[in-house]
């Protein structure tokens, strides 16, 4: 299959002019061109296949949004290659954006003073969607996103959750081949987040739309994405499955065992007893130490077991450790 996104050694540098403080500095700034080079995206390469749902993670300022802005044709790369949906986004902006959708969580792409429905209808003309297809999509999305309550409200009066739903609808009405979502759940409550996740999944599965989303909420990634990419300081640190990420960097797993009796000595070589409460014992063990089944069989040889469960390390912790300890460098 030919990839729908192919990024090779992509870079985007910004010049930030340096201004000394005070009046003297301002005046000097008029004549000198001192600037600092910010390497927002510094040589990343990846491919995305049609129909994938990819999570793009990274701490603030890592280069996520800059990548997305290049992928959507808003920014021209400093160097490197970028082919999306058979085109070079910045070079063929008009032709390219006709087949993509995008939501930038921190700004609306709808018209501020128009009622939602007017904005959506305008999109019909912008993308030249045939009326029947437009109706069908609008009806489908209206129901899934529960838009009816605020279709006639001007965009500026919507709540954040409503606005995000309207924006999502607007990004998908023209059946784009792929859609870029920049923090689509930012600032939303649990219920609203869930509704948006369901919608993204639906669009990916039912319409086969390729989705690339950035987020800070790892439950978004856990619930939606098979594949994650992690970027920091403009460089791609990890590209693979979520479980692979857990395996490589995950903290220790925990096995919670309820024994039939209150045994005196429950220790196992190489495994830490993290807690004990009567017959319930919590073992903590690393992947490299042993597998869960090895530990269970070791225990069941010596003890009678009533019940047990394995707890995977929290993905949130894993990613935090990756950022903080810079494990990937």
């Amino acid at each position: 299959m030919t990839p729908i996104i192919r990024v090779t050694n992509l870079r985007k540098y910004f010049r930030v002019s340096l201004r000394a403080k005070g009046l003297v500095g301002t005046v000097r700034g008029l004549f000198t061109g001192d600037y600092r080079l910010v390497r927002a995206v510094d040589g990343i390469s990846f491919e995305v296949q049609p129909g994938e749902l990819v999570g793009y993670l990274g701490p603030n300022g890592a280069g996520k949004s800059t990548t997305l802005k290049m992928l959507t044709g808003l920014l021209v790369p400093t160097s490197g290659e970028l082919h999306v949906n058979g085109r070079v986004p910045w070079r063929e902006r008009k032709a390219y954006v006709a087949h993509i959708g995008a939501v930038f969580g921190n700004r609306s792409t709808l018209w501020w003073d128009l009622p939602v429905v007017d904005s959506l209808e305008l999109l019909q003309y912008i993308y030249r969607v045939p009326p029947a297809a437009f109706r069908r999509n609008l009806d489908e999305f209206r129901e899934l996103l529960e838009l009816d309550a605020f279709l006639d409200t001007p965009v500026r009066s919507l709540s954040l959750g409503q606005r995000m739903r309207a924006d999502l609808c607007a990004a998908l009405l023209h059946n784009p081949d792929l859609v870029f979502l920049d923090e689509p759940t930012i600032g939303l409550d649990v219920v609203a987040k869930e509704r948006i996740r369901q919608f993204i999944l639906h669009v990916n599965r039912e319409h086969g739309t390729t989705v690339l989303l950035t987020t800070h909420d790892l439950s978004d990634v856990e619930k939606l994405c098979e594949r994650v990419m992690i970027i920091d300081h403009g460089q791609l640190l990890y590209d693979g499955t979520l479980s692979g990420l857990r395996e490589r960097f995950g903290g220790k797993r925990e096995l919670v065992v309820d024994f039939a009796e209150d045994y005196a000595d429950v220790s196992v070589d190489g495994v830490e007893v993290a807690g004990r409460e009567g017959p319930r014992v919590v073992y903590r063990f690393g992947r490299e130490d042993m597998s869960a089944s090895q530990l269970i069989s070791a225990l069941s040889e010596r003890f009678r077991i009533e019940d047990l469960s394995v707890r995977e390390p929290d993905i949130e912790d894993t990613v935090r450790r990756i950022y903080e300890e810079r494990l990937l460098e």
Partner: protein
Amino acid sequence: MRLYLELIRLSFQRTLTYRAATLAGLVTNLFFGLLRAAVMVALYNARPAGSSPDVAGISLQGAITFTGISQAVIAFLSLFSWFEVMNEIRSGDIGAELLRPFSFFGFWMARDAGRALSSLLLRGFTMVAAYALLFRITYPTGAVQWAALGIALALAWAVGFAWRFLVNLSAFWSTEARGIARFAFALALFLSGFVMPLRFFPAWFVALCNLTPFPAMVNTVIEVYLGVLQGPALAQALLVQAMWFVILAGLAHLAMRAGMRRLVIQGG
């Protein structure tokens, strides 16, 4: 095409809803119009006794009409203060529009057309009506002159729009683009014949102005209205307007392409 008609309609409706702003604008325009008419009367009367009643082919009545017409087209042309595209570039809101498969220039031109049309109806015609009550103003005569006036108005708006758009694009290069724009708009104020009909100025100054697109934004409309342009001269003036629109729109297109390479959308 349907899109651009929709944009014109939406923008037209939107401007119609700003009633208080319309009224305030009208009062201001009328006040300055009266002031300018008074200046014209004083200037005409200050000439030595026995001079010809006309100055450069324009009678006092024509000069008063000039002040009325130029005040009436202020809102329609919006020539002297327009920062909308600049604001979008600075705030990054331009991103939302660049994500859509339309021409950015065309999008803004359609929106501005809606705004200009409603301004012409609400403020232009009202202003002329107010002048008609207060003064004995002149009117175009005959179908040809009325048609020419319509074309000149539309072209004046188009040239003015392309100029404003181009000036606004300076925000791609400078964070102090507002100052650049203020200067550019002040230039248009003087060189377009808004302050005085260009005929009143020395020939060398007029020749200089004619090298710029500014007379095509106001002066042509005035001269067509007052009927000082006739026959081939009239046709030529309209052609010059069209030519300036093509040149400025072409420049705007090039500047847009270059500007996109400079675009920085902060945040997120």
